[in-house]
């Protein structure tokens, strides 16, 4: 029965956009509408962030994108294929890393990846090499023959990522991949996701840790209460203006100068007192800094107070309440 779909293999792979798209998908569990008419698009070769508060429907959307959950309404397309009809072909193109760390604890990392390769029906003779390659890529090669239960959370997370990559999918769905990772591993994950996107994969990352998404995401889809709230690229987010925090040796002089320039600012009650204000973009920031310095204000720090995506997120939070 699945043999029929194989005939389309060659042509479907040549689709210009190998990304993943959800169009007006809805899914409810009983009376809870987890996802309502959500639109989502993640293009190939880009990292797309899926951002929203807890319970916004991120995981439900990812489950639908991973073809584990059927949408009540709407359609999903992976490189032009419908998961309901071309199940096997869609599955072999999508890699999914769940938010729960499900590992077969008594198996070693190598065995887990080998099993996954078999479940994806990779050619038997290439499995050993592919597994070794991935173990090295996620830096688990020295722990490859330890049972998975002795791995730390971060190591299990990396194993989970390797598991999602075993069949070299063109779409990668990562549900909270950075949770529980130490700062070093986060940097590594960031580099790796950039690499994967550069290889032409569509990478979807759901997270609510926003500062790091600025660095990796090319675009973001904001969701809340089961709906797509906004879809924008990181550049657009940055252009929409962001909040800068400025400190000076003489805060009163700084405040007076800003007032003189006619800028609205507010005092931040952090550990170090600072003034923060919204600036339209990089050129605005440049101009203000020059003005302040030329005016003789002793500026000690001048930096964005939040990430660009965080700014959008916070403004949306305000709108939605």
């Amino acid at each position, binding site marked *: 029965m699945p043999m029929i779909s194989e005939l389309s293999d060659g042509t479907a792979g040549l689709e210009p956009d190998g990304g993943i798209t959800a169009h007006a998908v809805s899914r409810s569990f009983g009376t809870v509408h987890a996802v309502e008419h959500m639109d989502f698009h993640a293009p190939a070769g880009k990292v797309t962030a899926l951002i929203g508060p807890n319970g916004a429907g991120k995981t439900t959307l990812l489950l639908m994108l991973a073809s584990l959950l059927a949408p009540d309404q709407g359609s999903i397309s992976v490189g032009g294929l419908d998961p309901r009809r071309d199940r096997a072909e869609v599955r*072999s193109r999508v890699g999914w890393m769940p938010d729960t760390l499900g590992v077969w604890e008594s198996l070693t990392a190598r065995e887990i990846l080998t099993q996954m390769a078999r479940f994806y029906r990779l050619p038997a003779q290439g499995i050993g090499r592919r597994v070794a390659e991935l173990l090295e890529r996620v830096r688990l090669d020295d722990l490859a023959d330890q049972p998975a239960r002795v791995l730390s959370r971060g190591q299990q997370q990396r194993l989970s990522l390797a598991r999602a990559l075993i069949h070299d999918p063109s779409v990668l769905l990562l549900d909270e991949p950075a949770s529980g990772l130490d700062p070093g591993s986060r940097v590594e994950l960031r580099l790796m996701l950039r690499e994967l996107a550069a290889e032409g994969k569509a990478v979807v990352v759901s997270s609510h840790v926003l500062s790091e998404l600025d660095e990796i995401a090319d675009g973001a889809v904001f969701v809340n209460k089961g709906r797509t709230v906004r879809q924008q690229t990181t550049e657009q987010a940055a252009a929409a203006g962001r909040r800068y925090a400025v400190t000076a040796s003489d805060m009163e002089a700084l405040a007076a100068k800003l007032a003189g320039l006619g800028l609205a600012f507010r005092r931040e009650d952090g550990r170090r007192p600072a003034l923060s204000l919204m600036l339209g973009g990089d050129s605005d920031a440049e101009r203000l800094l020059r003005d302040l310095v030329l005016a003789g204000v002793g500026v000690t720090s001048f930096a964005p107070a939040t990430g660009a995506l965080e700014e959008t997120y916070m403004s949306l939070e305000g709108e939605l309440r």
Partner: protein
Amino acid sequence: MSHATKDRQDTGGRTTGGYLPGIRDVVVLELKQRLRSRGWYIMLAIWFVLTGLVTWLTWASWNASQEAQRGYPGYVAPPDTGPGSMIFEVVLAFVLLFALLVAPALSANAVNGDRAGGTLAILQVTLLRPGQILWGKFVAAWAAALAFLVASTPFLVIGVALGGMTPGHVLVALLMLAVEVGVVCAIGVGISALAGRPLFSIVVTYLAVAGLAVGTLIAFGLGTGLTQGTIMANQAQYRAYEPLSREGGQQGPIEPEYTCSGPLQEQSAMRTERVAWLIAMNPYVVVADAIPYEDRSQERNYSSVGAIETISQGARYAMAGPEGTFPCANGEVKPRYLAQSTPLWPLGLGLQLLVAALLMWLGWRALRTPARKLARGTRIA
């Protein structure tokens, strides 16, 4: 295998592969995990020791009773009976009991245990089909349970070696035990795919096993009361009492024990054949009925009849109903002993397989992805 590899190369990529290799991969995954858990070995060791203990106690108590009987003056040992039949029956009953108790523990958390651990969705998202996952889990659970049967084989062989039985008995018994364990495993795996929580599915599977082992008896007993019917029969004239004699020379044909005469009259009888299917589903009846025993219809002395035979004959009486067992029903003499040619176990096993297949099918439906309906409170991942 080489053919499959060639196929993959031809298409230049992956294929969905055969159905069986997928099942095999799931079985390998499951067995690797089971073989590495210490609990399974501990259970196996306890099982071995317990079965050994039961075998030894049965043998010892048989010896003791022989010893005591020899003390009576004028006692002559029955010719060809050793403890074999008795040990075999006790060990068989015990192994079946424990197999019924162990199998749910090995199977009833196969699917939802993975779901709770977050590893089920990992399998579901691959190219594996829901049927392959379910069959793989079932075969692995069955294999793990069969190890317990293998561990008890030596004691069943001892039962044979001590006399009275043939290797055929052991083979048939082991085969039927294996099938019964398989039925319970299938029920357990099916329920575990349906139920949200492992604890719940294990309890339900135990209840299902209790239903088969005890519930069928109760249902049959209560059901019989509802089968009051009538049958046309005339009067049975029993032959005059003849003292039992051990000397073979005097034993004439003992059947018929009675003759039928007089007009046919309506007599009340229990139409047990209507509810006999209930008792046929009992695992003990299935196993006992499948094990061959000698045709004793020409024997007068039933003293050495074992439990297996008694269960089997009892169930066959119920199945035959008054038409086949009521004295002088329709004016015909009924045999006191029902022949092996009317086995009951295919019916019972068939019904058990039907239940197991239904549960497995429902479980398969629950494993399909993309999932439309989720059980209450379950998260797919």
